[in-house]
């Protein structure tokens, strides 16, 4: 075989990848190359990618020809490079499949801005403020016979528009006087159904500056309002100018109190789930310990049964279980507890079983030899060995359960996550920020605490 020309296998691999390797007797290698190539071609056809993508097969194809040549001349082949090049098409297709778009990551950064700014201004504390409002009625569309209502702000200040009626998109001048000098005021448009929106002045939503004489003036555009029928009388809108009349002391917000309450609920949820889960996992774990279940076919069957149940339960995410329990017992923390209990039994059961399996049989033998009965053997030989790791695992589980129960709240399982999900939906990002900070602080603290406890015990 050494005298044969290495060109033939190389040519074979050029025509059908892997064929050269197969002809040289490298069955696994050749078969794998052929299978990979078929898989890639199949994927490319199925995904209907542009012909350009077919180019990514080239390096692998070329390397496969070279590999056949090297093998035929009985030199050492470069397997690593071969299969790295073989993995290349897979990565390219995975990139495609996961819809990776780095451009969007940077161009859309402004969309996340309100969320991030909320995160950096969590609504824990707020300053007591008195807001003064000056307003004037405005009619859309013209003509109008009524006189618009005007109200002066409690701390002074009146506004006046150049016209009292107009159509959407028309421009008018807004004038104000009697406002505190050099302060910022906010302009709001209140439509007939009392929905508030900021008025845009010269393309800016920012607060409007008041001059040194207490007056301001600017052009405003009549905004898009609610749909209306042409035969109705004109709608009554209202223009409001709002400003901070006086600032008082800081106070703890209602948000902070709610965050605290729901955080407590989350911790309690985790506590209950861990306690109930641990109590149920303990007896279960004896059935899942191979060393205790040996000898008798019935016991071995029980062992496989309990291990199987634990593995299946553990592979179902608590989030999914929470959805099931929300349907079962309704929204709220109880559903979350149930989901966590089920997962905790499975997770702790496995860890408990493994610590039973790893105990030292010596002390058990020694205690049995003193004439102790089965209960005494467990109390004096098994428990002292497994209790410290059990406690460590349980504390760790509590820590995990707190983290999990924040997520479970998103599907209605109660606790802080429930609140956070609501605030995100309502786009109340400062409150959401407060909840996120509270979760972060509690998780970090518990993580530290449980690590300390485990260190002590083990």
């Amino acid at each position, binding site marked *: 075989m050494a005298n044969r020309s290495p060109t033939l296998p190389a040519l074979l691999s050029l025509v059908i990848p892997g064929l050269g390797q197969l002809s040289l007797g490298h069955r696994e290698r050749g078969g794998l190359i052929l299978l990979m190539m078929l898989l890639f071609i199949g994927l490319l056809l199925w995904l209907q990618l542009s012909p350009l993508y077919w180019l990514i097969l080239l390096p692998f194809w070329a390397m496969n020809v070279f590999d056949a040549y090297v093998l035929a001349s009985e030199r050492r082949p470069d397997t690593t490079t071969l299969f790295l090049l073989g993995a290349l098409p897979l990565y390219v297709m995975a990139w495609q499949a996961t819809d990776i778009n780095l451009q969007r990551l940077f161009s859309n950064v402004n969309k996340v801005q309100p969320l991030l700014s909320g995160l950096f201004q969590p609504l824990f504390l707020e300053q007591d403020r008195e807001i003064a409002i000056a307003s004037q009625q405005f009619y859309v569309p013209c003509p109008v016979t009524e006189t618009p209502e005007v109200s002066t702000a409690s701390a002074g200040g009146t506004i006046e528009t150049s016209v009292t009626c107009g159509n959407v998109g028309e421009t008018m001048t807004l004038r104000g006087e009697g406002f505190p000098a050099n302060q910022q005021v906010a302009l709001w448009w209140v439509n007939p159904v009392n929905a508030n929106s900021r008025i845009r002045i010269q393309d800016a939503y920012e607060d409007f500056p008041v001059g040194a004489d207490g007056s301001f003036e600017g052009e405003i555009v009549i905004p898009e309002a609610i749909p209306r029928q042409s035969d109705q009388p004109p709608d009554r809108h209202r223009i409001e100018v709002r400003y901070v009349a006086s600032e008082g002391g800081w106070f703890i917000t209602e948000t902070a109190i709610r965050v605290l309450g729901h955080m407590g609920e989350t911790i309690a949820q985790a506590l209950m789930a861990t306690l109930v889960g641990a109590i149920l996992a303990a007896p279960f774990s004896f059935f899942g310990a191979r060393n205790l279940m040996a000898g008798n076919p019935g016991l071995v069957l029980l062992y496989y049964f309990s291990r199987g149940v634990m593995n299946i339960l553990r592979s179902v995410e608590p989030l999914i279980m929470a959805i099931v329990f929300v349907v079962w017992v309704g929204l709220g923390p109880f559903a979350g507890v149930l989901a966590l209990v089920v997962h905790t039994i499975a997770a702790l059961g496995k860890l408990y079983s493994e610590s039973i399996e790893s105990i030292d049989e010596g002390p058990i033998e020694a205690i049995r*030899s003193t*004439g*102790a009965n089965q209960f*005494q053997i467990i*109390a*004096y030989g098994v428990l*002292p*060995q497994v209790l410290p790791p059990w406690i460590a695992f349980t504390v760790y589980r509590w820590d995990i359960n707190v983290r999990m129960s924040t997520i479970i709240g998103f599907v209605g399982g109660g606790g802080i996550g429930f609140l956070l999900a609501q605030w995100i939906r309502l786009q109340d990002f400062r409150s959401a920020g407060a909840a996120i900070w509270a979760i972060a602080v509690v998780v970090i603290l518990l993580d530290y605490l449980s690590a300390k406890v485990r260190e002590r015990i083990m």
Partner: protein
Amino acid sequence: MLEIRNVSKVYDDGTHALREVTFNVKDGEFLVIIGLSGSGKSTLLRCINRLIEPSSGQIIYHGQNVTAANPAELRRIRRQIGMVFQHFNLVKRSSVLNNVLSGRLGYVSTLPSLLGIWSTADKALAMANLELVGIAHKAQNRADELSGGQQQRVGIARALMQNPTLMLADEPVASLDPALSDSVMQYFEKLNQERGTTVLCSLHVLGLARRYATRIIALKAGELVYDGDPQGIDEQRFREIYGDEAVEHSLR
């Protein structure tokens, strides 16, 4: 006091650990079992208190048939037989005192013992036994804080809690520094001479066996190949027991 009649043991994997072993032990003897590792010494000792179930044969202890005993009877027999192990078999995380007290479990009622309640008499006995082996000052330490020699003394104190009439010792000095071997073996000698406790001890160092035994039995591949005086083991016997390549170092 102890009769071993035709005891055989075949493990599930087919290993013949003991083949028709028969011998008697008289009250007050210091009987040493010698043999290579794997010759069946540990199996034989564990068959006596049925930590390992013999496959066939009978074991009679003080007229009671150990092999035919029901679980409750077996526990009553076991509590009269102390046992000391090569690897000490202490609960490492428990205190020395708790390890020693656990030797008394066969004599106390279940519920208080499960709750960790011990009578003053039992606690005093535990301290006295710790005193006897010279480590009363370590009573509150965790067992794994002690050195190997000290741990084996805790093991002896635990067995003494049973007030045993027979003491089984499975290679009690094999995991200890040779320099400590005598210090531990002397406790068995003292027990044997002062309390008249029968001692059945396996050893693999013939020198130690000669020094402490009143009688030696030898096992080879599960068969009893010698039963007699310590002095009776000459060069030829030695080769029979330990194989042709063995050289006895500890003799000289």
